[in-house]
């Protein structure tokens, strides 16, 4: 009897060989992406980074209750896709959905207020960190039991196909999701119905606390499965927002043109643990260090400098974002705790929760 975990002879994963990032591709400086768009992508990455850091600070102050899953280190994926999408396109995310919600344009104040469980939260305090949704921004929900949301994403794509709107659905999930049945049902279904949907695996190398390679039959959990559904294997550097943006544009346009679904695997790294409770100590220190050197935001900053953007322009973007995050914090802290009048509302379409007469 043998299995990969047992063969390693250890469950202290921090002692394993580190999985290192590939080198940065400087050729991507030359991608045909207008500088204005690049500045927007930079600003979004700054917002996601500063928002998540603030959310973390607010945990430490015990103002964020429950759990929360941060996207620190993974901002380039949500920013790259967010900017490649049309305002009426649809997004689906997992419990790690703060970044995807903000990247679609939801205001940071109500998102942060939701994390704090306040009445002025984007879900009125009833969903919390793991269920962020903003239908008016096409953010169709964060789903905390991974897998099912890929099948639901097929539904919005089917709807767009039936209504002839050419809207595209983009559905994000982690590497761990590729081992649940719904992932496979959803891919097969999307292909046989030619649905305008893009599935994006954010491979951050860990399924919660366990290295993904130990528990997955193939090295690239999403890309290596694509062929089973007649799809191209698409791997992209998930720490390079321009690379992500370019791939996103291509697969989204393909879906919009009626050419069916795509599956993209973005290789990235979670700078912290899985959730609030996890210090992430199962990761080899050399691995953490190597990925820190490939942090998407300083990398993008350097690229913009190489492209001739003055440092002052970038620091003023940073400061502007810092001000917005401060304002969002004040907005969130200023919200009241929801009162009893909210407990029994919005179970049914009539606004109430009555189950008997």
């Amino acid at each position, binding site marked *: 009897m043998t299995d990969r975990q047992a063969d390693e002879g250890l469950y202290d994963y921090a002692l394993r060989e580190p999985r290192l990032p590939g080198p940065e591709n400087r050729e991507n400086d030359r991608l045909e992406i207008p500088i204005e768009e690049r500045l927007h992508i930079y600003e979004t990455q700054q917002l996601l980074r500063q928002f998540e850091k603030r959310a973390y600070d607010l945990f430490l102050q015990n103002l964020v209750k429950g759990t929360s899953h941060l996207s620190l280190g993974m901002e380039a994926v949500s920013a790259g896709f967010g900017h490649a999408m049309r305002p009426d396109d649809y997004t689906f995310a997992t419990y790690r959905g703060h970044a995807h919600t903000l990247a679609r344009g939801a205001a940071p104040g109500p998102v942060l207020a939701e994390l704090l469980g306040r009445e002025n939260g984007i879900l009125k305090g*009833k969903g919390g960190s793991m269920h962020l949704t903003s239908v008016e921004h096409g953010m169709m929900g964060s*789903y905390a039991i991974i*897998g*099912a*949301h890929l*099948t639901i994403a097929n*539904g919005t*794509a089917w709807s767009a196909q039936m209504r002839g709107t050419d809207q595209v659905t983009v559905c994000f999930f982690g590497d761990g999701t590729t081992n649940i049945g719904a992932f496979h049902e959803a891919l097969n279904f999307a292909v046989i119905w030619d649905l305008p949907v893009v599935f994006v695996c954010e491979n951050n190398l860990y399924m919660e606390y366990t290295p993904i390679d130990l528990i997955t039959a193939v090295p690239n959990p999403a890309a290596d499965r694509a062929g089973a559904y007649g799809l191209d294997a698409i791997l992209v550097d998930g720490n390079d927002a321009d690379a992500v943006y370019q791939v996103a544009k291509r697969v989204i346009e393909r879906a919009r043109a009626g050419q069916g679904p795509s599956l993209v695997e973005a290789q990235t790294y979670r700078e912290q643990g899985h959730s609030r409770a996890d210090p992430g100590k199962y990761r080899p220190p050399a691995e953490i260090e190597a990925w820190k050197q490939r942090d998407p935001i300083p990398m993008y900053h350097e690229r913009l400098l190489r492209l001739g953007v003055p440092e002052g322009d970038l620091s003023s973007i940073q400061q502007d974002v810092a001000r917005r995050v401060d304002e969002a914090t004040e907005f969130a802290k200023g919200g009241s705790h929801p009162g009893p009048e909210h407990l029994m509302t919005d179970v049914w379409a009539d606004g109430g929760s009555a189950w008997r007469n």
Partner: protein
Amino acid sequence: MAELTYRTAVAHGIAQEMRRDPNLVMLGEDIAGAGGVFKTTVGLLDEFGPYRIRDTPISEQAILGAAMGAAMTGVPVIAEIMFSDFIAVCFDLLANEMAKARYMTGGQMSVPVVVRTANGGGSRFGAQHSQSVENWVMMIPGLKVVAPSTPVDVVGLMAAAIRDPDPVVFFEHKSLMADKGEVPDGEIVDQLGVAKVVREGTDCTIVALALMVPRALQAAEQLAERGISAEVVDVRSLVPLDTRTILGSVSKTSRLFTVEENPRLCGWGAEIASIVADELFWDLDGPVVRITTPHIPLPAAEALEDMAIPSVDRIVHTVSDRMG
């Protein structure tokens, strides 16, 4: 007025709503070309075409997920889960996704989906294709649950379920498929959350659902010969639950029997018994008695299955014994 079978009434009800609402679509396994394994969707593909009546792979999660996603964007969807036992395969979509979407999003999301499914025993299919699982979904906040017992109720409740903006699970009983009943011409739209007194009586109330309704009616007939006047209530809708009709009947008869095909523990009758005990305790002349399938997986053999599911005889004997 036409006489329709229960199974034809299913297609009749769906067709009525598809003619009314050109956006309404349906998906499921073998529902298009084959007309459904219970022949409940015969003729719909011909009338409404392959874009509105769609066959799917055996992928229950993908079926309910697609239904939910389309519904979230305003497209009403009917999804068929071939046997209600298979709800267990896609329970996440029902219990965690559709049911909670509106509440969790602070009211942003609406999920107008009807999940149709063939429920119940009597077909000798064994433990994985025969269960009566209405109690599985009744317990979930955010789902509505109906289970008609006659062809006209199939049509009317189907229309009500489809027009409802919330997710509704619609149980079609396998052993009622061949039953016939009068269905009036023209549009029929019923109401969710309304029980019906289907036989009046004065000595006791028998509350039943789906296949148990005709059995309760036959039992009432035999009980009358024994001098017991039983009132029979067809619950029809478990959520919302028409407690007013049930409490009204029990306050008149002072005795309550439930007849449930679901296995005993946490069956819907337990909830009704609890409500009656709480709100009509001093009006009762005797204990509330639940007549249920025992707490066992269903057996396949004809002889055993018939012993398990409440029969007319069992209802008659239990009621007359307990009425003393």
